């Protein structure tokens, strides 16, 4: 699904050259659940943005769903994002003036789905995240957990292959956080490829694979049952750097 080969992302900061990513090789297969961890500044978010085609690698090749997307034009990248990638952000990024249904319907507006069908599909997506009764509430009238579930409904309403989540529970208490994670877990079990960036070992533990970044490179990887022991290994460091 996602194949990164020797990905570099370099920023020019005045005189200095900053390597946010320095030769990352990463393959995520279809239906996989991967967590990306690492201290602040290790390049987690940059990696997620490159995977999500919001940012371009300075060097390296990227195949998405079997297609080389390294040199696509801006509009072509938009089309791939629209059809195949869902985003969930720490701060939800809901449009404050639109109610829940309209927020969920937003990606379909740009895809040119007719309004009637758009609203029907958006309502179904809201039902699927358990927010059917709140469909006409605006973000300001909802709790953090509800807002994040609206955001998840929006990220999945186009039926993307991949969902990218950047600290999805970062602003949530543990109860609504685990509700959100359960929801994402269920979607993953139904075949959605899930890549989650997190500081929180409790979040990472739910993944099948954990990739730890350090200084723009992949420092460690845990697979399968190893992940469970990760909390003890990583706990203290993650506690310190979480916001």
């Amino acid at each position, binding site marked *: 699904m996602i194949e990164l080969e020797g990905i570099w992302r370099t920023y020019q900061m005045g005189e200095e050259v900053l390597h946010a990513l320095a030769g990352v090789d990463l393959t995520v297969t279809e239906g996989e659940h991967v967590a990306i961890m690492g201290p602040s500044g290790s390049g987690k978010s940059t990696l997620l943005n490159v995977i999500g085609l919001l940012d371009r690698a300075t060097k390296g090749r990227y195949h998405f769903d079997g297609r080389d997307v390294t040199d696509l034009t*801006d*509009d072509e990248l938009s089309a791939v*994002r629209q059809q195949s990638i869902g985003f969930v952000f720490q701060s939800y990024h809901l449009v404050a003036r639109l109610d829940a249904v309209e927020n969920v319907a937003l990606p379909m507006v*740009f895809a040119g789905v007719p*309004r009637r069908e758009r609203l029907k599909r958006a309502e179904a997506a809201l039902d699927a995240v358990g927010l059917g009764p709140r469909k006409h509430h605006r973000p300001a009238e909802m709790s953090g957990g509800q807002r994040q579930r609206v955001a998840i409904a929006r990220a999945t309403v186009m039926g993307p292959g991949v969902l990218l989540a950047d600290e999805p529970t970062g602003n949530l208490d543990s109860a609504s956080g685990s509700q959100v994670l359960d929801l994402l877990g269920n979607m993953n079990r139904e075949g959605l490829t899930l890549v989650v960036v997190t500081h929180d070992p409790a979040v990472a533990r739910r993944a099948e694979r954990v990739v730890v970044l350090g200084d723009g490179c992949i420092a460690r990887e845990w697979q399968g049952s190893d992940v469970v022991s990760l909390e003890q290994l990583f706990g203290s460091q993650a506690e310190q750097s979480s916001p």
Partner: protein
Amino acid sequence: MSSLDQLRFALHALSFHRLRTGLCLLGIAIGVSAVALLTSLGEGARRYVNTQFKSLGTNLVIVVPGRSETAGTIPGVGGAPNDLTLADARALEREVHQARLVVPISMGSETVANRERHKQVLVLGGTDGFIPARELDLERGENLPEMEWNRSSSVIVLGAELAAELFPGENPLGQKVRVGDRRLRVIGVMADHGQQVGLDIGLMGLVPVATAMSMYDEPGLFRIIIPIRAHADMQSAMDRIEQVLFERHGELDFTVITQDSVAGALGSILGALTLALAGIASISLIVAGIGIMNVMLVTVSERTPEVGLLRALGAERQQVKRLFLWEAALISTVGGALGLLITWGATRALGIYLPNFDASPPGWAVAAALTVSIGVGLIFGVLPANKATRLDPVAALRQ
């Protein structure tokens, strides 16, 4: 993404910031109504002058004392070496065969009184030809008698309104009025023709020209008006008039003008004035456009994370740009429509107070004001929209 969706999105965004949107609309509305209203007034004035001059008949030649270098303008007062005399008028009547009539005119302001009722009005000295020359009618009584122009006679023809003021509920015919220190007998009342180019026919007295000249102790005529025969050539008539008077005076110390040239000159002055007013008013429209730009720039920086989100959701750069352009276009179009509504209301209100002043905005001004306002909105909307378009989605999302 359909235009309807874009429109809906823009409307949503605008209605979310009611005060800001409202103030922007107001700015554009004031700009558009300023342009439309000022051009309406200018055009109205031009039309008014035109119809007023038309009502005098078009083939009217006027001889005024004094020389003006440029034909077609109204000659300056004073500095006339030779007066225009009654003898000049007689000569013109005799020798200019194109003339339908020749009417010598003397003019002044006098108090006309019937016992304690009195009014200061224009008392014009003329002949029996004045009423047909100005295409007026008598309401009752008689015209000035046909007689030698250099003979005085103690008679007066009153304007309708003057007659009504001096003789409320009475028949003025045969009664005496005091004009200055003279007592004149009312022999006729003119029909009400309203205002005619600076001369209020209703509030006017008409006396024999010699009577007026001695009353004002004025040896020269104010002017001579000469209606030309329907099929005669204006230019040859003017040449002939000039020739006859030149022979008598030995110099060009008079000016021959036509009603048309005066009307034309006034019309072009008013036209230029209208354009100047429209130009000044468009400044307010441009200021309003800058207002839109300012608000749109604030909107874009405020909604930077939203732009990032839209890009993440798969919106193309051009789609984002169009969303912001729609907002600017909506403000300027709705503002323009509001401005025209204000203009319509204002000209209607004006119409109530000045019934014979037609100040409806000219079509070209309405079209121009609307086009300019929409253009202004789009031009000043492009910069903020481009700013939104160029945002890096990653940076925008992080804000």
